[in-house]
């Protein structure tokens, strides 16, 4: 029987640095949390978190929570959120970057 690979993520500063490299969080400061991205999202309520909450994590600088958000597994990159955002935040771009960061910080043993 094959061993199930244990997934473990690098922690601490190294991981944060990796995320910082891939996610540009400057744009999300404009977000007023109106929730239009969620209502525009084709996967809006499929996951336990909504795209708005992902952005909120980033506003609080909770990178762990953002990268680990269940929403990232549901996003189909339809860019409805970016199109609908009244403040011009590229939500889809941020989510995509988070997906990349998640991928970068995955490590198989």
């Amino acid at each position: 029987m094959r061993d199930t690979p244990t997934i473990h993520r690098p922690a601490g500063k190294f991981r944060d640095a990796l995320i910082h490299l891939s996610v540009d969080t400057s744009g999300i400061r404009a977000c007023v949390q109106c929730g239009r991205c969620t209502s525009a999202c084709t996967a809006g309520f499929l996951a336990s978190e909504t795209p708005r909450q992902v952005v909120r994590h980033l506003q609080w600088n909770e990178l762990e929570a953002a990268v680990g958000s269940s929403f990232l597994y549901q996003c189909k990159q339809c860019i409805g959120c970016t199109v609908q955002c009244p403040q011009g935040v590229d939500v889809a771009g941020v989510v995509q970057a988070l997906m990349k960061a998640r991928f970068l910080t995955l490590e198989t043993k």
Partner: protein
Amino acid sequence: MKKPTSRIGIFVWDPDASLRNSIDLDSLLNRCRSLKNVVCCEQAEALPGSDVPEMPVRDVGDERPDRIIWVGHIDESRYQQIRQTLSRSGVNPYLQILCDLKAQGVCSPSLDPNVRARKAATLLKMAVARARLLEPLEPLSLPGIDTALVIGAGVAGLHASLSLLNMGFGVHLIERDSGVGGKTALLERFYPKICDPRCGLDFVCRQLIRSERLSLHTLTTIAKLEGAPGAFTATVFQQPRFVDSARCDGCGICQDVCPIRISGHSRYFQDEAPFPTSTGLSALAKDACKAIHPAMPMRIPTAFVIERDCCPENCDACRTACPNGAIEFEQEPREKTLDAGAVLVTTGWDPYPLSRLTEFGYGIHTRVIGNLEMEKLLKTSTVNDFKHVAFIQCAGSRDNRHLPYCSSVCCSATLKQIRYLKEQSPETTCTVFYQDIRTPGFEEDLYREVRSLEKVTFVRGLPSGVRAQPSDGSLNLTAEDTFSGKPIRIEADLLVLAGGMAPSTQSTELARTLNLPSNQYGFFEAHHQCFPEESQRSGIYVGGCARDPMSVAQSIESSHLAAMKAVRFLREFVQVEPTYPVVDKGKCDQCKRCVEECPFSSFVFDEKQFPEPVLTRCRQCGNCMGVCPLGAISLRNRTVRQYAAAIEVLETSFMNAREEPLILAFLCENDAARAAEEANINGIPVPPNVIHMSVPCAGAVNNALIADALSLGIDGVLIGGCKDGQCHYVRGNQLVRKRSGDLQDKLKTMMIEPVRVRFESLEIRDSHKYAEVLKTFVQDLKAIGPNPFKI
């Protein structure tokens, strides 16, 4: 004829002996006595005022001074009192100057006594040099016209007119529609009292039409505005009414016989898309009316108006029916000229075109309406048929793709509509989707009240679209409740979009006709905090929503303010301070830079194409004086020559060592100069190396003066002005920085380092920053060494 020589009197006011304690005052006065043109140099025992009406002069005989330098620290208000008292006893107020040694830092205890004495002597020399060149000036009176031109007869225009008429002035009231009232007359209710706005409007209109000095021009737009404040001439263009106003008595017989029904004043809904009428909403919104109809929105004036474009060919039903023979199909558009002393712009707003919000399907789905249409719907009984009404706030406002600003009234308007709706049909469910509810001040009461109503839910989260059921047209909305992160799904019968306020289309036209600058959104503003009613053109004042989005109450308030300010140009004589700029036509080479840079567009050309300021337009900021490459323009009491003369006598050697740099600071008298005075008087350690001169605006500093100062051996020049966007003269601080580009080339040819000229933004209480700025400037100057021109 021999030019009379100036006789300068120097008076020292030193009640607390602070000057005497810090410098050898007697020897200073002795030195001053020997200066050319100085006839007396004394210490004043008392200041002129109510007790001492005369100049404190002893034993000067025939040599009575005709110009006075006050030395010492005198408060601004006290100084003005002295000026006025002395002007009554024959000394022109513009021949008196104040040389405040304390504010220049002479009394600073840390200063070397020798430096102190030399600095004081230099400052006095500079004052004397300037005083020699002062000229007596008398205030000017120019004729004004006691009639104002008010553009736009909405709630703001009507109130402004009433206010002016009550003060005894005449008013030309221009309105592009057939009747007065504007947008407010279209509302069903207005907050906070939830009463009918027609009541208040009617009250004002009744008073207005009683006045003989009001001339109302309906169906009129302004085509051209010429002249200056106090003497404007407007060319207006009046569309034909096809009804003789003098004969029509408004009986309405014509309306009964008219065969044509039209959709009414569609202009208020801006959207060209025809409103769907399939769902019993046909009674809604667009007033169905006949081709001949009463004046709209309010029936003032009484005369009816014919929409001639809609008339069928050869129909004269109304003409034959009219008992007074008032119908005149032959009327032509007319051009009129109106004279006015001041212009009030109250052109209001237009609703933002909701069809641009494609996601909400306005104009496509039959049950999606705007908030203005909701006002109309509230009037009808149809409103009771709806069981669930949804409201979407910020539809078009606070959105980078539409209107980036908050339209400020939509929240309260929606709350008002809900309250009124619930009064009529308490069973209706209301859901409000919002991102923030903005109810400043007492409007919060309305919010609290509506929140407490049954079946009213506020959802913090905006839907991003709407889906209509093909069967019955009901609407499905989904949004995120951002507090819980849970989806909210509702089915509504009616969706009301709280659309935003855009500047009126007439404002856009006016901006061109009146050459009136507007802000990035198209509203007219000059200095929003300090002078909200002013536009960037003197004599043109702005009230109501033409200025910024505001409620009815604020519109009324702002229009009264605008009317109040306009009074200055409506009197028999317009008073002008004699300190206006004068162009030396012998020097001027007609480069027209002054014309371009004047923030208030004050310059016109005389018959020989020389620029000439229009005195009533000018706000005397001196930016023309600063920009003129030939130094040909000077404010009358602060000429380039006076500044140059003062700089010329500035002794660069007053500091002990040659290595100690000397800085000349030109400071804006509105803020930077105050900060500097404050710093020195309050004992904040300001480097002694600086001598400051106040200018009316940082933009008034001419490059020639800076070059002069540097070529005379002054090590550094500091220009202190306002922060960006805070300048009372719009952008004087930016102009001076723009010009510094040209100056740098000039300095390079003079072999002077461009870093010797520095611009700093200083606010009125930035005394500590002023000291810091100077400290670093002194260090930097020490590092690059003394000015090569220094002796």
